[in-house]
């Protein structure tokens, strides 16, 4: 079971308290009507799915009910950091575009 640090509660809690919400840092397009089908499809469905460092969104469902980001290794499952939405991750992956 993962042991996840919630940056809002400032505490480690067990994975059971959280829900996984997929890849982090996906920005909702400002003007969806102006997008092509390719751009809209990419936003909705296409994901990095890396083998290694992954920035992902978690939801503290049965705790503070806030969203935050986690940098986790998808092979070893080691969690490198938790950080609030809007903050930049300290641990970068190869495919990161900043």
């Amino acid at each position: 079971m993962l042991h996840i640090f919630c940056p809002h509660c400032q505490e480690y809690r067990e994975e059971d308290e959280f829900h996984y919400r997929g890849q982090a840092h996906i920005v909702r397009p400002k003007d969806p009507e102006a997008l092509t089908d390719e751009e809209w499809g990419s936003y909705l469905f296409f994901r990095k799915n890396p083998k290694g460092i992954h920035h992902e969104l978690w939801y503290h469902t049965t705790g503070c009910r806030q969203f935050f980001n986690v940098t986790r290794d998808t092979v070893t499952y080691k969690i490198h950091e938790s950080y609030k939405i809007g903050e930049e991750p300290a641990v970068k992956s190869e495919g990161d575009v900043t």
Partner: protein
Amino acid sequence: MKRYSVFSLFKHALSHHENWQRVWRNPKPKQVYDVVIVGGGGHGLATAYYLAKEHGITNVAVIEKGYLGGGNTARNTTIVRSNYLWDEAANLYEHAMKLWEGLSQDLNYNVMFSQRGVLNLGHNLQDMRDIERRVNANRLNGIDGSVLNAAQVKEICPLLDCSDNARYPVLGASWQPRAGVARHDAVAWGFARAADALGVDLIQQTEVTGIRRHEGAVCGVETNNGFIAAKKVACVASGNSSELARMVGLELPLESHPLQACVSEPIKPIIDTVVMSNAVHGYMSQSDKGDLVIGAGIDSYNGYGQRGSFQGIEHTLAAICELFPDVRRVRMNRAWGGIVDTTPDACPIISKTSVPGLYFNCGWGTGGFKATPGSGNVFAHTIAHDDPHPLAKAFSIDRFNSGFLIDEHGAAGVAH
């Protein structure tokens, strides 16, 4: 290839079974192939077999980083069925089902396909409405099935707790009698042996590390054993598909998750069918050896570690103990995980890509085993003609841009 038969069995018995021919060769890779298939699991081997058998393309290599059928082919719970809701999916899985029915004869290899029937349980009124809808849709597509009430379910599977005070009350089930199980290793080995006999090179312990292109089009693969040239490259790598796509700068609508299963110690025959329950995330059958084969749900998070979470397996076994109170004290022998590539609509991707000569067959998620022969069959056609097989057309990667998704979350059996 020397054919297997009762006579060959008898003949080899006389020499203490010491002179059987090797099941496949272990060739050195050639310089150039017409088609290189990346991934030596059931789907990849089936693709190679049908390329050689139906399309006459025998200059084919299957490149596998480990050993044949050592990934998800060896990790699934071996269930075969075709009761999917939407026409596109139902037709694809039914195509596979029809191939399953003649597969042992076709391959001259006993894949132990056992049509023992599959029950999909309904535990509440909405489950039953969904089941009725799905069975009706199946019958309109020519896939036989029926809706059973609790008494009929109890008759087929007496082990199941169908009493009124059960934790998960059984109101009924959908029943596909032609569904069943097959020996998963034998499927990989049977396709491998038959493909090898037609001239396909099976290259194991070789990992693809890059896909080389010339003027945009694919021209071969880089491996840890050197470069292998190919006119076409077909990727059938399930959980590792996103990593392969990244080699040519493509992104796929996939997320890789661990999915786990377990088997019990062997016990006497107690269940002669397959029972699945979407609502409680568990399914169970019994292997010929006597093990109870139990499948769980996927872990919610992305993962490439081939192991599942403890709470995942606990959740499933708790449900199995409620459904089958008699097995509560049976001990589990092994649990393991495989990496499944899930798509947003729980349907596979069988597709050409924007890179000429590069094809992907992936996204089978939690339920690829049942489609093994059908998947290979339509994918081989797609590669050979550079044009999708009629049954594969709807499964193009373009659907994630056009919006024509085929939502099979209900029939796929395990929540994504």
